[in-house]
């Protein structure tokens, strides 16, 4: 043994070093903080999906009819189709920027579980697009003649539905992150998978507007969210690994 084995000799010191590694939860929080902070530095990217949602939903009364009973009838479809498309709008940037500047690669090589980091990134995406959409949906609904009693139902269904949209979208975003113009392909990949969310979301909204119990479609939305939470992060991790090669 020569002097070259200093690193192995230094092992007793290296073990506390390992213990000094932050916990998985602390790492996820750091990642969440990073993505939120980054998003607020790029405000235009942040506002775009929400502005799109507001514009689409307000164009309908102008284009279709000003009659509130008729608008009320199409309101679930309008709100949900607009929410779906605007949530897709921001997806393109979820991993692509990090993939291009090499920061994602560094996270993949950090020795930490990549899945946890991607979940944190997806959570940040939901907080930045899903949550604002859920808060905005009742307001957009009001413009379409939706009664006030239906607001909690709309808020809950869009809030739950966008969780699934973000998670399934993350898989699509991870698969297409290496492409320069991934928008069209990303929509093509993601839209068929999120159709159930559209169906049950619109159904819950419709029942809420009619003043009937909407718990059944809402529970199905929750089930979809649970399913996506368990499976999507694993698929996204595998997709990121493929793309980093």
């Amino acid at each position: 043994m020569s002097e070259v084995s200093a690193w192995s000799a230094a092992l007793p010191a290296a073990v506390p070093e390992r213990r000094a590694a932050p916990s998985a939860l602390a790492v996820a929080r750091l990642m969440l903080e990073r993505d939120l902070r980054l998003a607020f530095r790029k405000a235009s990217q942040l506002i775009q999906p929400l502005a799109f949602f507001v514009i689409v939903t307000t164009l309908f009364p102008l284009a279709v009819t000003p009659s509130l009973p008729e608008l009320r009838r199409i309101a679930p479809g309008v709100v949900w189709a607009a929410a779906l498309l605007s949530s897709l709008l921001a997806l393109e940037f979820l991993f692509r920027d990090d993939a291009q500047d090499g920061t994602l690669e560094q996270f993949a090589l950090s020795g930490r579980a990549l899945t946890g980091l991607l979940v944190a990134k997806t959570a940040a995406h939901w907080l930045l697009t899903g949550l604002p959409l859920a808060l905005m949906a009742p307001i957009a609904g009001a413009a379409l003649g939706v009664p006030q009693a239906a607001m909690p139902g709309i808020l809950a269904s869009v809030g739950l539905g966008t969780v699934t949209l973000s998670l399934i979208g993350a898989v699509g975003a991870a698969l297409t992150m290496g492409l320069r113009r991934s928008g069209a392909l990303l929509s093509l990949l993601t839209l068929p998978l999120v159709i159930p969310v559209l169906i049950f979301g619109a159904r819950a909204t419709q029942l809420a507007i009619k003043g009937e119990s909407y718990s059944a479609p809402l529970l199905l939305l929750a089930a979809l969210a649970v399913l996506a939470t368990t499976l999507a992060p694993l698929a996204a991790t595998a997709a990121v690994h493929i793309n980093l090669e």
Partner: protein
Amino acid sequence: MSEATLEGEKIHLWRGERHVLRGVSFRVTGGECLQLTGPNGAGKTSLLRTICGLSYPEAGAIHWRGEDVRRDLPAFHAEMAYLGHEPPLKMEFTARENLTYWIGVRRRLTRAELDQKLERVGGERWADRPVHTLSAGQKRRVALAGLLLMNVPLWLLDEPTTHLDVDGQRLVGTLLDEHLAGGGLAVAAVHHALMMSERTLRSLELGVV
């Protein structure tokens, strides 16, 4: 755990139709730096990416401390640092923020530590400026600060002196010398000779295909 050694064993790598690495073998032990030389397209970057596990070789294996790295990649990653062509930085963040998130995922950082390493690379004056306002050489220096902060035995460097002035190139040499003196090891792809002690330097020339 055994002594810090990195071994490559008859690595073959294909990139599409090209057979880039044809049975490359090497061995680096603590206190040594292996410099990878060869013309553009010889596979220097490919070899580095294969070592970190980003690329899958068609044949051959990488051994770290005598064990195949594929058996426990996260444990291997926790002991290595890889710096690619471009510094892995967010343009919207300051140098300090970049290091906080980049290295913070690996280990807890103290402010004093961050300041010390930033000063080491000559960055104390521009540490709080957004990275997009920094020059290419300054960005490279931020990446070097990250390398120091990771505090790992194995460095994998791809063209570590790109964009650096003579002073910066000398800094890379000094940092490497100190790292090796502490028992660390390094593999570096280079075009220009590294300004470091010749005694610990070994070369591996990769051929053209």
